[in-house]
């Protein structure tokens, strides 16, 4: 079966908060020299979900990414993990895409790329946290979707999925073609082998630009981006030993009428 996975390259979110800086004019985070570009974690898990299917069912996995030229590194990592091929969509006119424009461009690319049974996406991107692109692609392609899935089973021309809800799980069935978004419950992304990393570095990754896919006007306008100020001073509990600190903490909380 044919599986398409949408992936996004983002600034590494695992940096200490005090190292996080924004450009208020450009309205985006600043890429500092020692901050890496990585694959958005939920997208890596979407690929892991695809690979779990490929582990037991003959599948071809195509990875598509809308981003800068550097996003080819993310695509290559996906190929090293086990995806079969990748396509980069890149053009200056796609640079300020919101969720709507991103979903439109990706949906067009998916249509152009060929037939598919299943599209997998992360539940939300690790930078803007909008959480709409997956559902948006499904709506634009007029296919059914389920978000936040923790388990996927391919069965009888469709999928049986476990949707994660606030108080447990729901089991749902959908016919192909369909789209599923995943969160951390799907499992940790596997590590690529050194051999696959080497092979992936040599694989050709086509780039489609605004000649191949028409740019789209965004619907959401970002009017302000700022870091909220934190005026809190942490009081460090004194003590000669950790045990004494533990004891003093209890006293402090009693004083603060918390316990």
């Amino acid at each position, binding site marked *: 079966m044919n599986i398409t996975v949408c992936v996004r390259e983002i600034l590494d979110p695992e940096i200490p908060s005090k190292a996080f800086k924004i450009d208020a004019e450009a309205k985006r985070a600043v890429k500092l020299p020692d901050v890496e570009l990585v694959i958005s974690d939920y997208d890596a898990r979407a690929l892991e979900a695809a690979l779990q299917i490929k582990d037991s069912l003959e599948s071809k996995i195509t990875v598509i990414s809308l981003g800068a030229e550097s996003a080819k590194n993310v695509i290559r990592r996906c190929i090293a993990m086990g995806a079969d091929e990748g396509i980069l969509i890149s053009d200056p006119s796609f640079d300020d895409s919101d969720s709507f424009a991103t979903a439109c461009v990706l949906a067009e690319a998916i249509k152009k790329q060929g037939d598919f049974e299943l599209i997998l996406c992360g539940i939300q991107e690790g930078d803007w946290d909008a959480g709409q692109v997956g559902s948006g692609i499904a709506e634009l392609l007029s296919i059914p979707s389920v978000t936040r899935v923790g388990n996927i089973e391919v069965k009888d021309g469709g999928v049986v999925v476990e949707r994660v809800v606030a108080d447990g799980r729901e089991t749902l069935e959908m016919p192909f073609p369909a789209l599923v978004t995943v969160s*951390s419950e799907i499992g940790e992304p596997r590590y690529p082998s050194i051999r696959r990393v080497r092979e992936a570095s040599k694989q050709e990754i086509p780039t489609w630009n605004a000649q191949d896919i028409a740019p789209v006007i965004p619907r959401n306008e970002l009017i302000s981006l700022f870091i909220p100020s934190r005026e809190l001073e942490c009081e460090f509990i004194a003590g000669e030993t950790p045990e004494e600190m533990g004891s003093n903490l209890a006293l402090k909380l009693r004083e603060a009428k918390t316990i």
Partner: protein
Amino acid sequence: MTDRKGVVIVGELSDDNLAPITTELLGIGRKLAGDLGQELSAVFIGSGIGQAAGEAVFFGADKVYVIDKPLFKDYLTDSYVGALDRLDKQLKPEVLLLGHTSSGRDLAPRLAFRLGTGLSQDCIELSIDPGTRLLQKTKPVYGGNALAVYVCREGRPQMATVRLKAMEPLAYDASRKGDILPFDPELDEATIRGKLTGREKDEIIGVKLEEANVVICGGRGIGDPESFQQLEELARMLGGAVGATRPPCDNKWCPAHYQVGLTGKLVSPLLYIGVALSGASQHLAGMSGSKIIVAINKDPEANIFRMARFGVVAEYQKVLPAFEKKCKGLLYKT
């Protein structure tokens, strides 16, 4: 576009009552409707829901639309999106709000694309700009490190999902008057492409995380499942619940539903104690509403200390037993 009027909130029920998010949506809905000089309506979708839905009037709704049919007994993307699409065509609201809940965050994006409008999710602040009369939507981005403010100039209705516990409900007022109106979206069942075949509830022993007054979260530094037992013991004594960051859940040191964070559970206890966790912004996003934040971590540079009211820089294995012992002494003295 100028024929659009009114604020509509999509309500949810919980055990035959209004879910707390519904009263919160009505609270902010009332404010926005007031600023626009327009009406506030609530819509409920389900089966056998008429009685509970009507309560929305006492929390601020001028009108309550009830979509009550066996077809809608369980949430399904296609049926609920279809129903709200029909309702939008009828009511033509200026603003449409949903809760950022399990169903809300599945429903809203699909609905926004169906209606041809823009959406901002997980909003913690909403307001009407007095000049432009546009809905300004503020939401956390970059894992909670920054806040972004969005507007949608062209698409209608202006849509947002609202974070739990971010908005204030109005006080219950039994004297409020409003109309309760049935609505039949006349959906073609053939358009519903998914099927619900089963449901499983998490086994929660003791207090629910989201409702607990005391939450103790363990992080990567806990090290193993046995050490999580220590946290359980402490939580039991303090009458609270245990949560976790992502690494312990990934490593299966605790159940997956313990995860507190941006895509996990949102907690807002009176007392939060973070044990051996660094305080990644994804996790902070899930507990920043806590009243008193305490952090225990052997690393003085841990991010969590930037948010904590009280901090202990030491190994938790040595701190916790002494802390527990002292608490026991304080709590069980007369």
